[in-house]
């Protein structure tokens, strides 16, 4: 469904991604783990069109998308929920969600999608008319996730959705990401919370200093000595 081949990318003059390749198949949950500064966010930004790779290719549903602008990539059904949510602070919860349904095909069905999103996030329905700036950190993250689903995506990319949340909410976030399988949504998940991530991931990649160092099923990586030592502190 999503395929990256030999991606090299620069952040300013510094090379941040080195010859990266990655594959996400339909209906999978694929995780990308790694320390701060490993290049995870750069990689997602390269996929969603906020950045362009210096070389290599990105294809989605069989079409090349590297070099396209973010808005045309969303229209193809690839939704990116950026780091720290980035909700629109001076719009209400409902308006934020409506913005998520901006592509024409999603706009036509927005009332229906809104109902489904409210089912997943009942809290958002309670806060419907409130300005997003008045929400708590957890609610903002839920809003960002709900907004990302409003475009009726085939594939959702999450950039550290559990970052900065209370432990109870962290579990809630992982439960929701895991439940997207039932809605037929493929997931590419970037996280620092390695244990929870590998528990729900079908497959995972480990990224270090802009290079892929390890790849395998979630369960395999949980058992690997390397991951245990470097990320789980065992």
């Amino acid at each position: 469904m999503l395929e990256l081949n030999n991606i090299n990318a620069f952040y300013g003059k510094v090379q941040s991604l080195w010859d990266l390749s990655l594959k996400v198949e339909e209906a999978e949950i694929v995780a990308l783990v790694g320390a701060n500064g490993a290049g995870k966010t750069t990689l997602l930004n390269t996929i969603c069109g906020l950045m362009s790779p210096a070389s290599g290719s990105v294809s989605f549903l069989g079409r090349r998308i590297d070099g396209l602008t973010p808005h045309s990539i969303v229209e193809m059904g690839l939704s990116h929920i950026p780091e720290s949510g980035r909700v629109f602070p001076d719009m209400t919860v409902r308006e934020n969600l409506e913005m998520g349904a901006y592509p024409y095909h999603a706009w036509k069905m927005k009332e229906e999608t809104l109902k489904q999103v409210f089912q997943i996030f009942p809290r958002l329905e309670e806060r419907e008319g409130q300005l997003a700036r008045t929400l708590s950190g957890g609610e903002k993250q839920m809003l960002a996730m709900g907004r990302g689903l409003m475009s009726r995506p085939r594939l959702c990319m999450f950039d550290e959705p559990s970052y900065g949340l209370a432990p109870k909410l962290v579990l809630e976030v992982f439960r929701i990401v895991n439940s997207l399988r039932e809605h037929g949504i493929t997931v590419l998940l970037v996280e620092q919370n390695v244990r929870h991530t590998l528990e729900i991931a079908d497959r995972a990649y480990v990224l270090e200093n802009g290079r892929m160092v390890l790849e395998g099923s979630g369960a395999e990586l949980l058992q690997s000595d390397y991951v245990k030592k470097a990320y789980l502190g065992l």
Partner: protein
Amino acid sequence: MVIEIIDIFLSGLLMGGIYALIAVGLSMQYGVARVLNVSHGEFIMLGAFFTWSLYTYCNINPLLTLVICGPVMLLIGFVLHKTLYRSIRISSGGGAAFEGNSMLASFGLLFVIQNMAILIWGASIKGYSYLAFPVNMGGVIFPANRLVTLLFAVIISVAFYLFLARTRLGKAIRAAAQDPDAAGLMGVNINQVLALCFGLGAMMAGLAGTLLSMSFRVQPTMGLEYTLIAIIVVVLGGLGSIPGSFIGGFILGLIGSIVSAIEPSLSLVAYYMLFMILLLVKPTGILGR
């Protein structure tokens, strides 16, 4: 005494309507497209000359000109952003460098437009008489065109506000103002929206020019004063806040008419005093954050 107070209040509102309109326009250009358009007043001047020419040579009703002038200015602004400001945005890499460079470019634009207007229309003061008959409002007498100006300024501003609050495109504009990258991730074509915002700003200026020309003198150098007023109102209302600019326009209009009643030559001085005090005491404006 009572009549004098009504007089001051009404003339403040009448001027305030125009101030609100031009400030809402500048607010679109600076608040969303991040271009501090110093040539904003030149678009007002163009709108005014456009209306004057159509009225003087083709006898076209100035209120009808609103319908022609709006789209023409929108198109000029849109194309200007797509060509000039877009290339500045790419070459400066966005951010603070873009704000500085685009402001300098708009200074250049100010002189280009102004001199073109002098070439076309000459430097002399022009004017025409339309709906100039007096209307008595509770003992205070105003020319009818001033009242029509206020009415249309309010209608245009409210319609614009509803457009931003209710429509899909209006919401995309607000989203782009708050976080352009996130708006892009929602599927908003950012380059189109920024150009549209600049165009809408030019449209507001053009419409204000049309309305102004009915009761004020028209000349190629009239623009700068309005630009300065628009900047003051935008800061007064709070940067990037459309309702703030709207309310700020009326506040400034009222301050202007109160000061003029005491000493007519001091109104501009009062505006600048207010501007300085505001920057010192409440730089975020009344509705800004």
